[in-house]
């Protein structure tokens, strides 16, 4: 277990180094990518926003403060801002037309049926409130713990759990409706 003094020593360390960044890139790239997939759907937009997040993180790495948050948490703070900027600039891929367009591009990793299901999920997620959708993307896309999400969103951990539970319930109802 890291003791208090070891933790203190970590506070006075240098900002993130190239080696640390490379490691974090490998670990966090899939998580950030899936956060955006659950926010804006599959396709090039998710890749663009992922790229934007990592480019910003690398450029601003000197502003990262280890005493304030883990680097991963800091990365999600940037990712959330990138998503907000994206929504300010343009509407997300929410229409059925977009979903159908995406469905035409087969994805070998997901498989055709699962891909169709994800496109339907993307559509249903777009009908949720913004906060619900973001929490779902953080929890189920990026795979973050409720506690981490609570810190990122300034909600309490129990509040996060309740919002996710309700959002999941809404999704379930919509999912069971006939297409």
């Amino acid at each position: 277990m890291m003791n208090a003094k070891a933790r203190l020593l970590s506070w006075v360390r240098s900002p993130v180094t190239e080696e640390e960044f490379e490691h974090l890139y490998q670990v966090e790239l899939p998580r950030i990518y899936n956060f955006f997939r659950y926010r804006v759907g599959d396709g090039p937009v998710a890749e663009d926003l992922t790229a934007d997040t990592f480019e910003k993180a690398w450029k601003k790495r000197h502003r990262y403060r280890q005493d304030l948050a883990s680097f991963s948490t800091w990365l999600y703070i940037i990712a959330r801002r990138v998503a907000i900027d994206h929504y300010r600039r343009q509407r997300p891929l929410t229409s059925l037309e977009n979903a159908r367009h995406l469905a035409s591009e087969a994805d070998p990793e997901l498989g055709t049926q699962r891909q169709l299901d994800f496109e339907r999920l993307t559509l249903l997620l777009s009908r949720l409130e913004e906060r619900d959708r973001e929490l779902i993307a953080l929890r189920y896309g990026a795979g973050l713990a409720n506690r981490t999400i609570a810190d990122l969103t300034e909600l309490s951990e129990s509040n996060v759990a309740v919002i996710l539970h309700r959002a999941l319930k809404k999704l379930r109802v919509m999912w069971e409706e006939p297409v």
Partner: protein
Amino acid sequence: MNEKDLTRFRKSPRPEFADALYQRISEPMTEKKVFKTNVLPLRRMALALTLLVVALLLTFTFSPAARAIANEQIRQIGALLFREAGSDPVPTMEPTMAAPSPADAPQSVSEVQEAAGLAGFEVRAPRYLPAGYVQEDGWSVDQRESGVYVVSSYRQRENDRFLLLNQTRYTAGATFEQVYADNEAVTDVTVAGQKGVWISGRLMTDPEVAKLEPAGEPPLQPTNWLIWQEGEIVYTLFGNGLAQDEMIRIAESLAP
């Protein structure tokens, strides 16, 4: 539709996308300047030298970093460089030392003399502490590539206050940049006749809470920092709940 249904749609980024992105952001990391090897004639060398001098003068006069130093937006205490969030980074003062690996473990000793023996420099202890503060856990000495760190901690249980003293001899050439957050106020102070920096409002976790919950992210609270240098040792004293005059009084009471 349940939790498992929601996670089954995750997928890996395309390898070509992952590689291209890494290549794009890593270019500035690996870029190396290529110098031409041909020998310049003497006249052209003189011209180049003149232009270099002019460029340096212009840089110093007009660059935001130079202006920031002149305007005291940037402060330096030993190896620590303090920069305001809005100011430009100083290229020559980028951090140069690798971060320590998690396997590095500090040594703990109970006496200040033992700490001094391990550290290889004179370690000081506060002769004054505000009422109720007691030292906990002895002294921690950590030898790292970036320097030798000696840490001691003090706590006042009644009001849940903590105070940490960090004495560091940084490796020659090591530079660490600290950018102030928007909520931090930074002022110049004098400690034992030496130039120092006072930072108030820096949000941190209580080290004891962090110890109890190492995997989590415990709540942050405002702390005050006093940083100064005497000889080759940089001293950092920080904690919650103590005002500047009390912290300076503690700092000025330090003795071997």
